[in-house]
């Protein structure tokens, strides 16, 4: 059975790694951090590959592990020691030359300024399109907590976006004279 579980897991990684990496990127804001987070979480899943191959879809488990690892405070501190926040080299490439999105890196920088739980809720709600109940299950918290993180996170993000003078983005721009 182990060979089959291996194949199943590899197939999963092949088909879902791009998506999971993007999720990691939104959760961490850094390419190097995202790569590291993805590897850590996939190794954890690899250990359980036989059990996971019996599920219909291993993604909810991996997603949950990733979000929780990203929130984990100890791990965050450890990451901070390794990568200073202003590590320019590891940033996502700035500025889209076409100009439709003036600074597509902006949203990553703004998200990084939010507390990790608020950030996770916004990413799961608005990028993963998960229903609130599913977000609550992923984070292991109540529906009410998801709602409050979501509204506080949105409000804070709106504030931050509005205070970005170079920003061409978002409806917050309209509030800037």
């Amino acid at each position, binding site marked *: 059975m182990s060979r089959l579980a291996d194949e199943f897991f590899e197939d999963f990684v092949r088909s879902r790694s791009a998506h999971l990496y993007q999720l990691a*990127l939104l959760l961490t804001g850094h390419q190097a951090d995202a790569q590291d987070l993805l590897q850590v979480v996939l190794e954890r899943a690899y250990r359980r590959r036989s059990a996971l191959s019996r599920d219909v879809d291993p993604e909810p488990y991996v997603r949950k592990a990733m979000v929780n690892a990203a929130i984990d405070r100890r791990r965050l501190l450890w990451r901070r020691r390794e990568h200073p926040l202003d590590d320019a080299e590891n940033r996502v490439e700035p500025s889209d030359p076409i100009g439709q999105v003036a600074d597509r890196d902006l949203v990553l920088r703004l998200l990084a300024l939010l507390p990790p739980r608020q950030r996770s809720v916004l990413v799961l709600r608005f990028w993963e399109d998960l229903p609130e109940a599913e977000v609550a299950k992923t984070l292991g918290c109540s529906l009410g907590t998801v709602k409050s993180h979501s509204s506080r996170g949105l409000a804070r993000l709106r504030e931050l976006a509005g205070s970005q003078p170079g920003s061409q983005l978002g409806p917050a721009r309209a509030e800037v004279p």
Partner: protein
Amino acid sequence: MSEFEEWLRRSMDAAVADQAPPNGLMRQVRRRHTQRGIRLAASAGSAMLLLAAVVPLARTWHGGGQQHAGASGGGVLRIVAASGPDHFDPVPAYYTADYILERAYARQLVTYRTVPDPSLTSAGWQHDTSVVPDLASQVPTVRNGGITSGGRVYTFHLRRGADWNTIPARQVTASDFVREFKAFCNDAPGGFVGNLNYYADTISGLASYCRAESIFFSGTHKHPVTAANVVAFQNSHTISGIVAVNPLTLRFRLIKPASDFLNLLALPFASARPVEYDRYLPNSAQLDRHLLSDGPYAVDPVVSNKPIVLRRNPAWRQSTDPVRHQYVRKIVVDIGLDDAATQISDLRQGRYDLMLDTDVPVNELAGLAGSPEFHVWPNANMMPYLVFNLRSPNARHAASQRDVRRAIEFGVDKAAIQRVFGGPSIAKVNTSVQPAGTLGHIALDPYPSAGNRGNATKCKADLAAAGYHSGVTLKFLHARDSLDQAVFDAVKASLARCGIRLRNDALASQQFYPTLGNESQNGKPGAFDIGLVGWLPDWFGNDGRTTLAALFKTQCTENTTNYGCYSNPKVDQAISAGEQARTPAQAARAWASVARQVMSDAAVVPLTDLQSPILSSARVREAGLRAGVVFAPNLGGPDITNLWLSKG
């Protein structure tokens, strides 16, 4: 969705859209894993214990995005067919041969697994008839938040990574399901959905959408039925109860709760439909030449009088499909060989592997019994039963008198009917309108007799109670077919024992059902007193809507399936309760009460429940069997995505 939320969504998408992890991710994961193993092994004994705890037990496993143990890939599966499928377009497709092939190229939100099911009481039958996720990532329930508003709203999340075999491959989306339902009431020749009632009765706004479409094409405007006009209508009208909330979220709003709604969505009518199909008229030859697939196999352009060829679909991934597999390399269906005996000898000699649309004839059953490639699987149907025409004026309205009908219930020798179909292992006696294996089934036998051979004494007594002391003569209608003739002979012989004389009228099948169903309209209500009919449900388990409601709800209209115009307000009420039940448990109670009342009224005489014999060539393999194949009840035949060919 506020403007800001929309901005956030778009910005996040744009920020990560073309970002991919570095190459060699799997290698990195394995290296980390090995290093971790070394660290653990180097520490104390407790770490070893931990390792032991995560080593899983090997176990066999069926379905779930994984291959079966011992399965091997490759080879060509060869199928022989008399007339082949009726349709490839999933909207009109409503025939066993259609379903068997659709399994390979058209996926639904939810579906059924194919597992060996040796008896109706086994876990296998439960598995075969319970829905599991297909393109949906999970089966919605109240508990997981997928069923809300008191059972009236169903929300589905689609699997990411399930693709159409377009170039490049493209994600199957919620809109692909909306498109399918919008195509249900199209006016293209033969394109109308196989069964609209199930959906129009349950989904908000579908009936009015269909009325508007009918006016668009046949009302005062009379738009010509072209692909462009069909798609123009579909794109300018909405079905209020079906909404693509976002590309991967689909929401249905129902008129009333329906505990069997998931069964309706598991029917192949509710498959995903790619936007490319909008270029062609539904059910057209052009569409059949451009079929797309989201399943493990793709259909070569269909050319009439040529074999149908299905090949592995490179865009399909096992990890996105918990029920299907991609074992054989190619599937070829040869059409036009309609002699059953020849087909069977072709299978025995290995020229073909499976039969698509031909039943194993009764006279072949004895010769096949004991062969490892031959199995008889359970089914739960009313094949056949006798229906009383309650509108018939014949013999002083004999058929409308309950005591006459009860006399016949007692009089029929069901053991003789079993022999007609090949014996008790092929035909189980039905003593109720709810065969074993249906939800709410209760052991009910209100007209018992020793060995099910009929009770002539009770038959005579009930006939006398109705005032027919010197017997009665009734008209018996059946299709012109040797099996139907044999059933008639058996019924006639058994009823003769209590003074009921039958005169039969055998009609060609194209006249038979219209005559049965249209009696009250065509001015010949005396055309029959007893009809010989059969009923196979469209799904199994929670199947009241597709059996009891179809057969016994008051509906004396043209083309009714309540052939005898039976009508009882108490039964109608219980049927409504069954259809609108929020839970299967509530539905079960309602359907049981329908069965009890219908049997008490003696509206029909249940005869037998035909089981499903199926034969394969010696080289076909399926999980859980030494040889031969499983009969998947919801397909009405073998599951070609579950089979492999032995190398030996």
